[in-house]
Structure formats: structure tokens, C-alpha cells
């Protein structure tokens, strides 16, 4: 597997203010990579740097496909960053994923409509195509945004807090869907979340971030009580129950 995203001793931040220092890690093709940390820890800063909308203050960051071309990201943003004033249909929203391929001045054609249909079908919402996006449930909206990301024919699927504000069944359904896209389509996935368990039980590699604390590796190496206690600054224990990792705070005696 080839490395497609690589951070080398990168210092990340805004303006002249550094938020994260000495960031070194890489993501390979076919990886299922999780990026977790508390709110405000710097996850979004890393994410923006990967997506190319933020430049590192120093060090190097490369995001390049195996063919040497810039990576194509299928980005699934947090749902609250979207403007719901106009009643775009599900089909119209997913079509936006095709705009870059069309280029300026050119309208989407038959080929794009077929691609949109396939993507809707792939995430099991073909029946929602004509409905107004803004009137869907949180889980349905997330599927639409995933379909839009797929419509852009991405090298990497990037999801920012995809299960925020969802009930348990919707959360699990979305995580299972992303897992399926990775497993069946061989898609490289980057999953960003502050919900540790959501990420830990699905990804193969994990990075945990909290200001001056950054660790990356296989889930079992990283997801230890010691690492999490350091990150959250309180006693945290990690248990495995029926094959699923469970995070317990207060050394296993307190609530989660």
C-alpha cells in the first residue's frame, strides 16, 4: 500500500499562532483511519490541513495519489455548516459532488445524472431523490452527504463528526454504512470524531490528539487506559466486551 497523505514534523495553526507541533504520521491507500480527541483539541486543524484549505506553518504535508496527482477528497461536512434556506432536492445536493468534474460553465449531463443515481442507490436512499434535503432526518441527511462525497469519485472519503446529534440506531447505521464502503469498495476512509467509541470500534488505525499530545498507530496500541487518561486528564480504562471496545472513565468504577 502506498502512502497518500504524509505529515512530516508539521506545525499547524492559524496566522502565526501554532496549535499543534511536531505532527508526523501518514495514511496509506485503503486505510480506515480515525482521528479522535476532545472538542477544541485540534482535529479540525489537522483535517483542514489534509484537505488543503489550511497550510502548515512549518514542516511538510503532502496529499498525493499513487498517480502523482493531487488527491480527490470526498468530504462529508458537519451538518450544521450547511445552509438550509433553500429547498434543494436530495438529487440536486448529490449532483453538487459532480460539479468539479464538469468544470466552469458546463451543466451536468446524462452521465452525471446516472452517477448520482448509482450513488443514491449505493447508500440505500434512491427513494428519497426527489425530496427536499432540508426536511430529512439527521441520518438521512448524512446518507445524502455521503452519496454526494461518493459522486465526486474520491480517493479518500473524509467524514467530520458524522454521528453528531444522532440517536443510537442512526449512529450505528451510519457507522455500518461507512464500514461497508471501506470493506466492499476498498475506499480509504478518514473518520474524525470526538466520540471515541464510534471511531475505535470501526477503524484500523487511530490518531488521538489533544494540544501537546499526539499519538498514532494501530487501534490496540493507541487505545490504552494510559494514553486516554493522559489525553482527557482523568482516569480512563478501556475494556473489551463481546468484541467491542468500551471506554470507562473513573478507572472503571464511574459512569462512562
Amino acid at each position: 500500500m502506498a502512502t497518500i497523505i504524509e505529515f512530516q514534523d508539521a506545525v499547524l495553526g492559524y496566522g502565526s499562532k501554532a496549535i499543534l507541533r511536531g505532527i508526523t504520521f501518514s495514511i496509506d491507500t485503503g486505510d480506515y483511519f480515525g482521528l479522535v480527541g476532545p472538542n477544541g483539541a485540534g482535529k479540525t486543524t489537522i483535517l483542514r490541513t489534509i484537505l488543503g484549505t489550511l497550510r502548515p506553518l512549518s514542516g511538510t504535508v503532502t496529499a498525493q495519489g499513487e498517480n502523482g496527482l493531487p488527491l480527490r477528497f470526498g468530504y462529508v461536512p458537519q451538518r450544521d455548516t450547511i445552509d438550509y434556506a433553500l429547498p434543494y432536492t436530495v438529487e440536486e445536493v448529490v449532483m453538487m459532488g459532480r460539479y468539479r468534474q464538469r468544470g466552469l460553465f458546463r451543466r451536468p449531463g446524462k452521465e452525471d445524472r446516472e452517477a448520482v443515481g448509482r450513488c443514491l442507490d449505493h447508500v440505500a436512499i434512491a427513494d428519497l431523490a426527489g425530496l427536499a434535503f432540508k426536511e430529512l432526518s439527521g441520518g438521512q441527511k448524512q446518507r445524502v452527504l455521503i452519496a454526494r462525497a461518493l459522486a465526486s469519485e474520491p480517493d479518500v472519503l473524509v467524514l467530520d463528526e458524522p454521528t453528531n446529534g444522532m440517536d443510537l440506531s442512526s449512529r450505528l447505521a451510519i457507522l455500518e454504512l461507512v464500514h461497508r464502503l471501506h470493506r466492499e469498495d476498498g475506499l480509504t476512509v478518514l473518520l474524525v470524531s470526538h466520540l471515541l467509541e464510534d471511531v475505535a470500534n470501526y477503524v484500523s488505525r487511530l490518531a488521538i490528539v489533544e494540544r501537546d499530545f499526539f499519538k498514532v498507530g494501530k487501534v490496540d496500541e493507541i487505545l490504552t487506559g494510559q494514553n486516554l487518561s493522559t489525553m482527557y486528564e482523568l482516569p480512563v480504562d478501556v475494556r473489551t466486551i463481546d468484541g467491542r471496545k468500551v471506554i470507562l472513565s473513573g478507572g472503571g468504577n464511574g459512569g462512562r
Partner: protein
Amino acid sequence: MGAAEIVRTIVQEFPLALYGSMLVGVICAFLGVYIVARRVVFLGAVMTQVSVMGIALTFLPFFPLPHTVGSLVVTLATVVIISRLLTGKKIPRDAVLGVVFVTSIAARILIMQKSPKVEVAEIENLLRGDILFVTPELFILMIVAFVVAMGAHLLLFKEFTYVSFDPETARTQGYNAVWWDTAFYLLAGVVISFATHMVGDIYVFGFLVVPPVAAMLLARKVTHIFIVSVLIGLLSAPVGLFLAFLFDLPSSPAIVGVASVVLGIAWIVNVARRR
């Protein structure tokens, strides 16, 4: 005057008023959909006042530009500054617009009081625009602004709507959201500048807001919202002009009034549909 005679008078004696008001109605109703959707309605009011202030500036000896050019220069300069400030997080959006709004009005009043050229009432008339006395030069400028703004929006419809709907994802796809926003505000600035000089601030602001809101209540698809809004903008002008002649009313408020009545009907239709 009978109805037929009123129609004849409008068409034969005030053709520029008729076509000019329709032109402004269409383009403002179109751009207004974005302005309402982006929740920057106040920006419409601000830009009309900045435009009026730009005209007022040309009455000062040290700003000896034609009124239209003065309005355009001041509006576009303000648009560039505002579009940067609106994307920042330090000052709330409303506060930025509020400061520009009140400063423009205050500056205009001060300039009018100190203008050495003509009477205050005369300047006020010029600043406010008058549909019935649209000059051929201004009409041609408005056609150019219309073609440029409408052409750009129709050719780049997918880009403008994408950046407006989800700027963060658009940015990851290579669309520079700040650039697109600035382009939108500049196009709107050109239109508002000429339109305000031609038909007045009430008319322009009214058509940036009322038809889009009515269209949002009536239509259920985005493209239909644009079409319905443009139709309201197009048809309110002749109907309003006709009523203004029939009942001896001022033209701009009569036309905006017609659009407002359509909005009222749209609201009733929307409520009835929900039941």
C-alpha cells in the same frame, strides 16, 4: 383617465420608466433570492444607502465625478471591504452592516447640508431616483449591468448555488468561497448602484426582499423559486405603474406595494397548503 389611456400614456410617454422598472424588478428579484437565502437581507439595505451616499459625494467639490460613477465607485469599494468583514469572526455580521448603514446615512445628510451646488430638496430628489424620469444614458447602463449580472449568474449558476449552500465542502473541491462571495457581492453592487440611481432605494431594497420571500413561500424547488421571484419582479412593475397613474400615487411605493400584496397572497396560500 381610462384604463386604455393610462396604458397608452405609460407605453408611449414613459417607456423607459416601464422597461427600466421591469429590468430592475427582474434582476433585483433574482439576486434577492441569494441575499435572502444567505441571511444578509440587511446587506441590500446597506448597499442601497451606500449607493445613495456615493451619489451625494459627487456634489462635493473634491469628488467631481458623474453621479453614476461616484455611486458605482463608492458601492464597489464598500462591497470589497464588507465581503471581507462578513467572512471574519471578530465582528458580528449584523454589526458590520449596521455600522456601514448608519455611517452612510449620516454622511449623506452631512454632505447634503454642506453641498454648495443646489438646494437640499433638489439633491434629495436626485439621490432617491425617480422611475418616471429615467434618462436614456442610465437606462443603457442598467441594461449593461443587467446583462453582465444575469449572464454571469446563469453561466455560473451551479457554482454560485454550491458555494452559497455549502461553502466548506465547495472549498475542498477547489472553489475559493471568499472569491466567489466577493464576485457575487461585486455583481450585486454594480446592479444596486445603477438601479438605486435609476429607480430609488425603496424600490431596489423592496425588490431584493419581497419577491424572493414570496417565491420561497410559493415554490418548492430552488429553480422554481428563482423563476417565481423573477416573474413577480417583472409583473409588479407594470401593474404598480398602472395603479400609480390610476390613483395618482407615487410610482415606487405603488410598485413595491403590488409586490407586497403578492407576498401577502403567497403567505395565505402557504398557510392554506400546510393545513
